[in-house]
């Protein structure tokens, strides 16, 4: 089952990028088979069979929030870059997360990176280390509220 799912994902990606022709389908199939063998041999991962369902929920719930935050982040960057004297108060803060599951944490880390003024540097078990352009909160709780609570709420709907 794992092999089949991996193969299908790889094959679909290839065909999507290369175009829908007989030769491309054949080449894509061969490449997908080779890659499937290599990947399943060397990379350890599990496939979640609820993923298609989760993906739909994900798109509906998460995407609007994400795009809104991304645009906010860019306006923020633009404001900082264009102001004559760049306002800075940067530092690294630590934040705890309740999400479990690798994919949930990955998405949370990526979302934090793409929201205004924050950049995930490292993840250690359930702690995220984040670089902030402007450290606002005084305590860990406060930082958590400012930075990750919105996305954690959204992602908890998806990955529960």
């Amino acid at each position, binding site marked *: 089952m794992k092999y089949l799912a991996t193969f299908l994902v790889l094959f679909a*990606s290839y065909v999507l990028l290369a175009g829908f022709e007989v030769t491309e389908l054949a080449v894509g199939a061969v490449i997908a088979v080779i890659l499937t063998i290599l990947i399943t041999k060397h990379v350890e991962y599990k496939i979640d069979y609820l993923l298609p369902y989760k993906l739909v929920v994900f798109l509906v719930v998460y995407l609007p929030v994400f795009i809104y935050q991304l645009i906010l*982040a860019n306006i923020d*960057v633009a404001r900082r*870059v264009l102001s004559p004297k*760049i306002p800075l108060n940067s*530092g*690294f*803060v630590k934040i705890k997360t309740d999400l479990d599951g690798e994919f949930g944490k990955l998405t949370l880390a990526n979302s934090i*990176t793409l929201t205004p003024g924050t950049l995930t*540097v490292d993840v250690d078990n359930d702690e995220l280390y984040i670089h902030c352009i402007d450290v606002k909160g005084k305590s860990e709780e406060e930082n958590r509220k400012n930075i990750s609570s919105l996305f954690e709420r959204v992602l908890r709907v998806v990955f529960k």
Partner: protein
Amino acid sequence: MIANILLVIGGLFYMLGGLGVFRMPDTFNRIQAGTKATTLGAFSILLGVGVSEPSWLLKVVFIIILIALTNPIGSSSLAKAAYQKNKLPELTQDDLKELYRGDKND
């Protein structure tokens, strides 16, 4: 029309990203400016291409998904490497120390 607007917006954000990399004072802030601006810039330019050439739209969306997944990971590893290798700039708070400088028990 929409395609052109998207392309211009994308170019604008790319320019801001470049300016940010140029103007920000230290590595981490540069990475921040670079990542955010180029991500939205790339989305916008790709969407512009997709709108002007509708047969490519599916491809473009696929590329956007790949960029959205990989771009933050790239910047995150850059920041991690920079933290471990370089002299740090002035910081108001540094929680990462405990993870890399061995204060934390493994």
